[in-house]
């Protein structure tokens, strides 16, 4: 579809001279041979370690949120059968997006390719050999959970805001910590470029399920969601030329959902780091960040009043939202609870065409992944587009996260109750900006690879 660049015209082989074609085919043959070797006779050092390094070690390091480090052969070997099981089932790395429909290019895609899964699987099946340590890739430096993940790219935050301390309980009901903290850190309004939500390390990383830090401006203007967090979504960086206006003064309204997991500690503090455009620089586009779009209820209905999942059954809800101005979507983050299984985001264009933008079909309440579109494929949506969301609840024994399929499930804040909404990273445009973005997309599409 045009607006999301499905009409990409790239024919990499057609324009080549025959000699060039021959060279290319030879090169491809060599590459395929090496790939076959990796697939059929893989070793840890040559074939598996690079995959772990690229897709796993961000979490599975001594200071990461993964339950065990996977940095060395000795650390990996005891878990080899488990790793095989998890990657074959695509439980790990956590990426719950349907790979068969919708946009498939994301800034934060940590999923494995089919080839990578085959390498890991064959490696385990063939005895999990170490191979020659000389083949190991250069070790990467992993970022500690105590550090800012964006610091490598952006340096230290310009401003850090902090929640007030909360005493974490080990067991019991979900807890919500909602302090309000004065925000007096800036002399004048600034334009936000990126924000990172940083629970404490290591305790906060285990127990903060999701959270929001919203600025209520002193002048009574529109509230500004500075940062929103979920396990699996720690930061947000807006596309170049896009930013969020942040008033200078106000109050930060925190909403932190702590999920007791057996760990406790006094005085837990959550931080949010803010990175701004330089003083005086105003980006071309103003984003409103992640917008909550409900997939429940109707006009006049209390939120979630229509969520009712019978025992041993499923429920499907749909909610639609119409765009009254052009917009681009830069991220998509479904929010359901333990019975949540699927959430689909579709666009119905003004001319009646309809397409799936993204579908999460293996939703897992333990993760709140934000799917951040590559800039070249993020949806560009004209005025009048209807965004249609469809969510599916699975209250059967087939849902491994279901705490009790004999219950009737209704709306509520706890994980055992349900919710149904999406957090959609949204930037509205005027018509001129939209036409310009479409033109730029068309021009770039000439050089884009095929596929989405």
């Amino acid at each position, binding site marked *: 579809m045009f607006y999301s660049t499905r009409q990409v015209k790239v024919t990499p082989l057609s324009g080549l001279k025959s000699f060039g074609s021959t060279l290319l085919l030879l090169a491809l043959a060599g590459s395929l041979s090496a790939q076959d070797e990796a697939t059929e006779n893989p070793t840890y050092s040559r074939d598996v370690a690079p995959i772990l390094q690229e897709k796993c070690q961000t979490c599975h390091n001594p200071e990461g949120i993964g339950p065990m480090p996977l940095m060395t052969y000795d650390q990996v070997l005891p878990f080899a059968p488990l790793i095989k099981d998890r990657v074959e089932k695509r439980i790990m790395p956590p990426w719950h997006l349907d790979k068969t429909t919708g946009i498939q290019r994301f800034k934060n895609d940590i999923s494995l390719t089919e080839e990578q899964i085959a390498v890991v699987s064959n490696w385990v099946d063939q005895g999990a050999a170490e191979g020659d340590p000389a083949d190991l890739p250069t070790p990467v430096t992993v970022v500690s959970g105590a550090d800012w993940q964006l610091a490598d790219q952006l340096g230290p935050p310009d401003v850090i805001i902090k929640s007030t301390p909360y005493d974490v309980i080990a067991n019991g009901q979900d807890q*919500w910590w909602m302090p309000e903290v004065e925000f007096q850190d800036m002399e004048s309004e600034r334009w936000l470029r990126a924000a990172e939500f940083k629970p404490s390390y290591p305790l906060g990383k285990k127990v903060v399920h999701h959270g929001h830090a919203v600025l209520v401006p002193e002048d009574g203007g529109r509230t500004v969601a500075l940062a929103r967090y979920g396990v699996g979504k720690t930061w947000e960086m807006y596309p170049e030329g896009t930013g969020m206006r942040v008033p200078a003064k106000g109050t930060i309204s925190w909403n932190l959902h702590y999920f007791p997991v057996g760990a406790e500690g006094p005085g837990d503090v959550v931080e949010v780091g803010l990175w701004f455009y330089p003083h005086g620089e105003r980006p071309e586009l103003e984003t409103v960040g992640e917008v909550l779009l409900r997939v429940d209820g109707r006009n006049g209905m*209390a939120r979630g009043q229509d969520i009712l999942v*019978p025992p041993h059954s499923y429920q499907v809800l749909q909610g639609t*939202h119409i765009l009254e101005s052009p917009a681009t979507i830069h991220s998509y983050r479904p929010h359901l609870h333990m019975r949540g299984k699927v959430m689909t985001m579709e666009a119905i264009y003004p001319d009646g065409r309809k397409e799936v933008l993204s579908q999460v079909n293996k939703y897992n309440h333990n993760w709140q992944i934000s799917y951040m579109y590559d800039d070249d494929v993020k949806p560009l949506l004209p005025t009048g587009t209807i965004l249609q969301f469809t969510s599916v609840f699975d209250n059967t024994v087939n849902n491994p996260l279901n705490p009790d399929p004999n*219950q*009737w499930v209704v709306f509520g804040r706890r*994980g055992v109750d349900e919710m149904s909404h999406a957090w959609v990273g949204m930037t509205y445009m005027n018509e001129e900006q939209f036409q310009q973005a479409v033109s730029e997309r068309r021009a770039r599409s000439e050089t884009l690879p095929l596929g989405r």
Partner: protein
Amino acid sequence: MILNIISKPTQTIHRLTIVLVTLISVCLPSVAISQAISLNNQVWSAEVIRPSGQPVIPLFDGWYSNPDGTHSLCFSYFNLNTEQAFDIPVGDNNQLSDDRFNHLLPTHFDPLPPRYRHKFCVFTVQVPADFSTGETIVWSLNSGGETLSVPGHIQPPYVLDEPVSHGRGDIAPLVKLAPDSAASQGRNGVHTRQPLQAVVGEPLQLEAWIEHPDNRVWVGWAAHSGPGSITFDKPEQEVDLTQEPIGVIAEFDTPGDYIVRLQTIDNIAAFEFYCCHTNAYYHVTVGD
């Protein structure tokens, strides 16, 4: 069965307009066949909430432990009708799997509250300290179609804060039903010491003495059980606790024994956090 209810979208995306709701429910051929969405005498559709004709759903909110080691199971209900109330006497159509606990079963089921989703924890069942995580107390309710049921248990995912939620810093109001009676806090509830006496068609003032750190609470009165109808002059109130006592005028249309339920919480929106409200029960004997 799939039915779509579509209405014209009229608001902006900023206003989070919902214009289409679809509900599909699939019953698996499993143990819960009686809980099937395709209730024989019901029309189940995308429009779950209707003025009348829909069932009352029995719900289990969760459980908490009491200071004496016993546990309380919290049950609630969701009347899917906005206008139709039900009166279902205790018996085959309204019972717990262990009838020793039937004494506080509600028999009156108000329509869906306009501002909210369901009636939270309207009664509790207090089970012994040695009640195991594998045991259940099942509430079965038939509001005119098939019998729907829900199990209560003490499994960890359903544990409730009571009477304090430390995270939100919330606490259940302290309630007395007479100025010189003991105060109670939380969902187990406080009861009048002696049945109040009333006469059919004549107003009865029901009072409560409530304390809460916020000095402002939401209070709701509702018919819990009894043979007839009860009307209240102000069934929901947001009250200033410095203006004691808080009260409502009730009127009964049929002789017999009734229970009127009072629920109070600092803010009605706090119900969805499943803590912290207090129940209180007025026992009333109504004569001709």
